[in-house]
C-alpha cells in the first residue's frame, strides 16, 4: 500500500483514498443535482433527454406542416413562407420529407416537392415556391432535426408557484414550523433546568421516563390522539384539524429529545455559578432566566435546528392532524399529492420538490455546526 506512484509524491494508498471518497461524494450528490438541474430545464426537453445532457446541445426531431392555403403571390410566383422554430437560438441540423429520412438534406438545400421548390434554412425559416398555383389542398409535412442549445430558466418555478398552490403550502409550512419549534424549546428548557438543578421527589424516576419516551414510536400516539381531537371537535363544535392541534402534537413529540438534550447541557454547567447566585438570594426562577438561559444558547440552537428540520420535513403528523385543503396543506403533503396526480409531470415535481427542500438546505448549511453538536449530544455521550 505504501508504494509510490511513479513520478508523483503520493502513494497508491493515498490515491485510492482520494478516489474512493470522490466516488462516494459523487454518488451521494448526483441524485440531488439531477433534481436541481431538471427543475431548471424546459419541460419538453426534460421528458425526452436525461438531465446530464442538459449542458450540451441536444438534437430533437420534429415535424413542421406546410399548407398551400397560406400561399401568397409575389412577382408572379406562388410562395409559402414561415418558420418552424419558435426559439431563435435553436437551429436546423437536417431535414427530409419522411420520418425515416430526417437526415436527407442539409439546411439551405432546395428540394423538389412534386414539381415545386422547397428550402428550409438553418434558422428554421422556409420558403416553398411554385410557378403555377399550388394544387387545391396541397400540403406536406417536413421532418427535421433541430439543435437545441442548453437552456435553463425559472419557468417551471413560476408555473408551480402560480398553479399548484405551492406558495400557499410554503406559508402553511412556516405557520406550522415556527411555533412548533419555539414552544417545545421554552417548555423543555424550564423542565430541563428543574431536572438538572432542583430537588424534588421523583426527579430521577421522571427523567428516566423521559429517556424511555425518546424512542416511543409516533405510530403509538396517532390513533388515540386522532380520536381525542375528533371528540374535542365534536363536543365543543370546533374544527378537529387546527394549527393549534398540530403545534401541540409536535411539541409533545419533540419534548423528550428537547428535555434530554437541554438537561444534559444545563446539568454540565459549573455548579459554582448556581450556588453563588443562590447565596446572593436569587430564586431558581431568577437564576434560570438571568444566568442559565443565556449560557444555554448553543444547546437551544442545536435543538431548534433539529426540531425545525424535523417539523418542516414531517409528513405523517401533518397528514393526520391537518386538513388537505389549501388553507392547511403543508409542502410535504402537497408534494406527496403531486407525486400521485402529476407523477409524469417532472417539471412540476422537480421544481416543487426543490422549493420544499430549499429552506432546510439553507438552514442546514448555515448552521451545520450547531446541528452536528446537537446530534453528538443526542446520541454519543448519552449523558
Amino acid at each position: 500500500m505504501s508504494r509510490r506512484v511513479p513520478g508523483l509524491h503520493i502513494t497508491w494508498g493515498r490515491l485510492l483514498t482520494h478516489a474512493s471518497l470522490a466516488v462516494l461524494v459523487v454518488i451521494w450528490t448526483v441524485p440531488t443535482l439531477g433534481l436541481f438541474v431538471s427543475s431548471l430545464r424546459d419541460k419538453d426537453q426534460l421528458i425526452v433527454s436525461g438531465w446530464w445532457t442538459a449542458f450540451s446541445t441536444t438534437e430533437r426531431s420534429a415535424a413542421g406542416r406546410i399548407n398551400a392555403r397560406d400561399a401568397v403571390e409575389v412577382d408572379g410566383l406562388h410562395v409559402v413562407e414561415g418558420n418552424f422554430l419558435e426559439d431563435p437560438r435553436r437551429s436546423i441540423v437536417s431535414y427530409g420529407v419522411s420520418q425515416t429520412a430526417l437526415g436527407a438534406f442539409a439546411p439551405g438545400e432546395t428540394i423538389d416537392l412534386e414539381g415545386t421548390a422547397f428550402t428550409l434554412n438553418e434558422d428554421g425559416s422556409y420558403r416553398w415556391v411554385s410557378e403555377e398555383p399550388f394544387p387545391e389542398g396541397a400540403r406536406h409535412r417536413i421532418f427535421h432535426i433541430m439543435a437545441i442549445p442548453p437552456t435553463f430558466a425559472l419557468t417551471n418555478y413560476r408555473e408551480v408557484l402560480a398553479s399548484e398552490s405551492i406558495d400557499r403550502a410554503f406559508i402553511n409550512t412556516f405557520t406550522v414550523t415556527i411555533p412548533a419549534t419555539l414552544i417545545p424549546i421554552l417548555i423543555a428548557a424550564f423542565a430541563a433546568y428543574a431536572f438538572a438543578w432542583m430537588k424534588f421527589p421523583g426527579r430521577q424516576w421522571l427523567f428516566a421516563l423521559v429517556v424511555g419516551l425518546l424512542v416511543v414510536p409516533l405510530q403509538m400516539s396517532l390513533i388515540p390522539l386522532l380520536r381525542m381531537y375528533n371528540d374535542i371537535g365534536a363536543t365543543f363544535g370546533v374544527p378537529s384539524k387546527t394549527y393549534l392541534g398540530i403545534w401541540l402534537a409536535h411539541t409533545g413529540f419533540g419534548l423528550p429529545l428537547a428535555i434530554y438534550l437541554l438537561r444534559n447541557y444545563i446539568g454540565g454547567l459549573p455548579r459554582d455559578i448556581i450556588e453563588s447566585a443562590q447565596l446572593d438570594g436569587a430564586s431558581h426562577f431568577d437564576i434560570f432566566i438571568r444566568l442559565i438561559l443565556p449560557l444555554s444558547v448553543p444547546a437551544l440552537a442545536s435543538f431548534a435546528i433539529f426540531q425545525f428540520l424535523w417539523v418542516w420535513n414531517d409528513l405523517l403528523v401533518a397528514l393526520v392532524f391537518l386538513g388537505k385543503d389549501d388553507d392547511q396543506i403543508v409542502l410535504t403533503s402537497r408534494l406527496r399529492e403531486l407525486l400521485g396526480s402529476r407523477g409524469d409531470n417532472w417539471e412540476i415535481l422537480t421544481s416543487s420538490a426543490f422549493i420544499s427542500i430549499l429552506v432546510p438546505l439553507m438552514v442546514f448549511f448555515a448552521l451545520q455546526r450547531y446541528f452536528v453538536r446537537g446530534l453528538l449530544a443526542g446520541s454519543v455521550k448519552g449523558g
Partner: protein
Amino acid sequence: MTQQVLMAVLAVIAGVGASLAYFFGTNWLLDRLAPDGRRPDGEYLSREPLRNAIRPWLFVLPALVILGIYLVYPVFETARLSLFDRSGTEFVGLSNYAWAIQNPEFHLAIRNNVLWLLFVPAMSTAFGLLVATLADRVRWGNVAKSLIFMPMAISFVGASVIWKFVYDYRGPDVGQIGIVNAIVVALGGEPQAWITVPFWNNFFLMIILVWIQTGFAMVILSAALRGVPEETIEAAQIDGASEYAVFFKIIIPQIFSTILVVWTTITIVVLKVFDIVLAMTNGQWGTEVLANSMYNWMFRGGGDFGRGSVIALVIMIAVVPIMVWNIRRFQTEEAMR
C-alpha cells in the same frame, strides 16, 4: 395570503406568549403567595423551603402534562383499542390479533420490515464509517463530509421525488431520463421499472434511507474516531501491524459502543419508516411495511382503529428492548456522575 402571514405571526406571538405568561405568572404568584414574613410572636419566618418545594413542579408541569397526553396516555389507549372493534366501541377480545396473524399483507409487512432492519442500519453504518475514515485522511475531507451529510436535511418525501427520478423508467425504444436506467442501457442492459421489480424493489426503497442516514452515522462515528487515542494506533504500527489490522483490531473495538448507538438509532428510524414507502409505492408491488400499513388502516374505509392499533403495538414492542437498553445505559452513566 397576507392574512395568512399575519395569522402565522399572531399565532407565534400567542403560542409563545402563553407559555411565557404561564412561567412568569406562576412564579410571580408563588413569590406573592408564599412570601417570607414574621410569625405572630415577631420571629422572622422564611418560607423558602415551601417555595423550593413547589417551584420545581411549576417548571416541569407543562412538560409532564404534554408528555402525558401526547405520549404516555396514547401507549395505554392504543393497547386498549387493539382489543376493540374498528370504531373503538365494542370489545372484540383478541380478534384483531387473530386477523393480523392470519393476514398475508401483515406477514408481508413484517417480512419487509425485517429486511429493512437488516439492510438499512448495516449499510448506513458501514458507509458512514467508511466515509468518516476516508475523510479524515484528505484535506478536502470536510467538504466531502458536508456533501454526504446533506441528505439529512431533505425530507423523506423530497428524497422520494429525487430517487423516483433516479429510478425513472421509459420504454426500451426511447431515451432514458432516469440515470440508473441510462447507465444500464449504456452498459448494454435492458431498462427496468425498478420500483415494481418484485422483492428487489424493497432494496431500491431502502437505498433511499441509506442515502439519508449515512450522513448521520458518519458524523457520529467521525467524532468517535477522533477520540481514539493516537498512542494506541502508533503502538500497533510500531509493532508492524498493517493498516487493515490497525483498523479492525485497534480502532473498531474502541469505537464499538458508538457503532452500537448509531445502529440502534437508525434501527428506530427504520421501524417507523413510512413516508418513503407511501410516496414511492404506497405499499404496492410487495413493498408494504408496518408503519404504512398502520396508516392505511387508520383511514381505510373510514378507518379501522382496532387493526391500526395492533400494528402500532407491534412497532412499539420492537422498540421496547432498545428503550430498556437506553434507560439502563442512562442509569449507569448517572451513577458514574
